[in-house]
């Protein structure tokens, strides 16, 4: 190397000699001369942010995050903390994957494109639908995109989007924002004991409905038993049936294609990401007939000049960088790396591992519900349904007080009503469950 490293950005490799040579080449005395900024908007203040060494920065972030309490989370409701195999961290963190960009030059991006093609294929198998894109941001934004898709593809005009009254506030609110620029309005249909009230839904449906949304499992952990009936109601009204789910649930529960789903949305980060403060991976799959209306990126197979199979982004004329205001979506950056991780996690489990994980979601929830039901002052599950991963329990004491007491003992649970808590078993070991039952017994009486 030549000359000393200049101060400033530690990631700018310029030596003083380099900088001098480059300034001479562009014929200016200083870098300032290259900035064409009028004086009245030039910033000559300071941000007041001190530079730190790497070690100091790590210490800073560690010090801040250590203020989080170390709790055992029995939390779910749309964000799940399954164990992620080490394979996923080590292989997805390979720098070529992590530091690449959208695959605009497919010849130099074959590896990532193939991984995304495999992710799409995984979703095709799980949903039974023909087309999956290679990611949206999360379940809520995918739901929003489904509504705008329904608005575009439906044969006749219509204005109503029906969602269950139990829908998570974050999803409902995001959906409202997505349809704010359309004629669509979001309305709820009633649920009965944590799943859809099909009779009430039938009464709500008319020709003005463009989309009916249901979830399996529902936000209260109940398995939706009437999907085919909901699908038929939607189809008969010429509305799209949009189903919310996730790759673990779909490994065991009814295949969306078999119950008439036109679109499947949901959060695929149940595979590949640990709990990460709600960071997600929106899955989006649909029928082939809507292919040219799909939002987001699609990876397709093709051939190269040697006739070998090769992969490329395709049908880009749907996308904002080509179609501008007539694009199917404004999405540009997506969650490609999370999709890669999700596909890796699924591959590590394989079909038998996925099915086993899903079965355990049913059995462990049932077992915990039975055990806490034995506790004086607790009744579980509240809903007379089959459950997946989580369930609601009634507590005689105020739920908030129970949750606070549990937090003092090192557990986090959801409070979902004055006397209702919700418990999820994805991220906890059997030993932890034993200890939890013991501690809940103490605080619930």
């Amino acid at each position, binding site marked *: 190397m030549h000359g000393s490293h200049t101060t*400033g*950005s530690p990631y700018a490799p310029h030596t003083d000699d380099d900088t001098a040579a480059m300034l001479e080449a562009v014929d200016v005395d200083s870098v300032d001369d290259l900035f064409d900024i009028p004086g009245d908007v030039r910033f000559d203040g300071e941000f007041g942010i001190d530079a730190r060494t790497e070690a100091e920065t790590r210490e800073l972030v560690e010090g801040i995050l250590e203020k*989080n309490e170390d709790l055992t989370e029995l939390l779910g409701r749309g964000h799940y903390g399954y164990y992620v195999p080490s394979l996923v961290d080590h292989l997805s963190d390979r720098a070529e994957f992590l530091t690449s960009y959208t695959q605009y*030059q497919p010849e130099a991006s074959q590896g990532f494109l*193939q991984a995304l093609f495999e992710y799409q294929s995984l979703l095709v198998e799980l949903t039974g639908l023909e087309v999956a894109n290679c990611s949206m941001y999360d379940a809520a934004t995918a739901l929003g995109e489904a509504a705008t898709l329904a608005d575009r593809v439906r044969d006749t005009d219509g204005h109503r989007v029906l969602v269950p009254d139990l829908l998570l506030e974050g999803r409902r609110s995001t959906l409202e924002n997505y349809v704010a620029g359309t004629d669509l309005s979001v309305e709820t249909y009633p649920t009965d004991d944590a799943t859809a009230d099909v009779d009430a839904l039938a009464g709500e449906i008319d020709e003005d409905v463009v989309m009916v949304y249901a979830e399996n499992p529902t936000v209260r952990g109940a398995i939706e038993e009437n999907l085919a009936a909901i699908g038929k109601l939607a189809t008969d009204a010429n509305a799209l049936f949009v189903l919310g789910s996730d790759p673990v649930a779909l490994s065991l529960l009814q295949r969306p294609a078999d119950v008439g789903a036109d679109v499947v949305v949901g959060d695929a980060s149940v595979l590949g990401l640990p709990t990460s403060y709600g960071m997600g991976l929106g899955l989006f799959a649909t029928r082939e007939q809507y292919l040219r209306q799909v939002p987001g990126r699609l990876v*397709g197979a093709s051939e190269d000049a040697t006739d070998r199979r090769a992969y490329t982004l395709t049908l880009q004329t749907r996308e904002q960088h080509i179609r501008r*205001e007539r694009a199917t979506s*404004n999405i540009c950056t997506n969650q490609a790396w999370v999709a890669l991780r999700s596909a890796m996690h699924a591959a590590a489990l394989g079909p038998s591992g996925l099915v086993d994980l899903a079965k355990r979601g049913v059995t462990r929830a049932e077992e915990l519900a039975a055990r806490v039901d034995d506790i004086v002052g607790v009744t579980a599950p509240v809903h007379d349904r089959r459950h997946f991963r989580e369930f609601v329990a009634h507590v005689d004491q105020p739920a908030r007080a129970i949750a606070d007491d549990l937090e003092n003992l090192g557990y986090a649970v959801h409070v979902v009503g004055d006397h209702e808590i919700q418990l999820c078993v994805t991220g906890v070991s059997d030993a932890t469950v034993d200890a939890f039952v013991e501690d809940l017994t103490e605080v619930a009486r």
Partner: protein
Amino acid sequence: MTGDRTRYDQARWTDDGQYEPLLSEKDRTRVQIDEDDSPLPDDLTRDSLELPELSEPELARHYTRLSQMTYGIDSGPYPLGSCTMKYNPKFTEDVAALPSGAVHPDRSERSLQGTLELCYRLQDYLGRIGGMDAVTLQPPAGAAGEFTGIRVAAAYHEHNGEDHRNEVIVPESAHGTNFATAALAGYDVISLPSDEGGRVDLEALEAALSENTAALMLTNPNTLGLFERDIVEIAEMVHDVGGLLYYDGANLNALLGRARPGDMGFDVMHYNVHKTFATPHGGGGPGAGPVGVVDDLAPFLPAPRVRKTATEYELFEPEHTIGHVHGFQGNWLVLVKTFAYIARLGDEGLTDASAKAVLNANYLASQIEYDVPYEPFHHEFVASAGDQDAADVAKRMLDYGVHPPTTKWPEIVPEALMTEPTEVESKETLDQLAAAFNAVAGEDDETLETAPERSSARRIDQTSAARNPRLSWQALEEE
């Protein structure tokens, strides 16, 4: 072999008629789901699941091979204009993976003081850097930030009884996301032509502005790398008709410490943290697109936001919030990396990053033989491939061991090569890039049309991929 080509071949794994086989071509195992050993009755389950069942060593080799057939910023220079592909510091991966940060969003605020403090401090950093009064971290990408900003603008107008404002003005040189975002938010998009110098045409702007204007979306410096010198006048014109000025943060890397959107009169902006603050792009995401606003717009920001009381950090709902734009609070892991990056560089490092980014762009442009019609540019420039096809030039550049620039855009420049080297490239690397440009500039059409020859795959037929879409291994099998 021509020119000063770097000795470079991208990894290529071949197996009878294709490159690395699909997982499904290595194994397909069907697992039946029978009532006998299922915890659920048949009518609530699928019949079977058929996927590859492979061992961990087989998977490790598969994904290692795929990574080797992928070009990242750690592989070499990646001067994609308007994408700001910087080197990503390694330590930020470690701090983002801290177990103390792996938390569920529904935990109590009391138990999440660390997460909330980091959010609060990042909001504060971003506000200072952009000259904005209030910041939300929720949008999960730049385009999601645009959508958030435009929804906030819409809510502001509506609150003021001005919901007749149905137009958003976007310069023709703007990123495609601006048009798509305004349309998604329900606005009529008014496309604004550029003047001869490549900047906003003030007369055209005057003609486009009216009492129906909700906002003007502007990138500054624009996609030609040119600073909109009339920005103060533009802001006045927009504000005079009651419109808002939106700053597309895609090119903020050019301005750090030298100019702030808030000082220029912008009312709302997004930050592309995966560009400006070097968080990895991950093959196309995740990013994060925090949005900053001036005080008047703060009550409309998404909920919840983070604030600090005398004793703790807490969430709150802004008075006239538009609600959520993400199911939870956005792409947390990316935000941790952003915070760490900004804290590492500080004032001095951030300001220097912009200086070196601009120096690098100017130096590289001075060394290449292609024409650069618009200047003085900042962090990126748009060269013209002239008689050559820019897409072919790009393919050929891959043979020289470098990633090519963005091509054929913006359309203002014929056969555009939109180039942004960023601050992380050394003079030596820039010289290598320039050599690649110049070697290709001297090559004939036939050579360009058959490139690349040294990448993992040869030229791929993108037309047939679109004409006959095969989007899954199931679709390939049906053939």
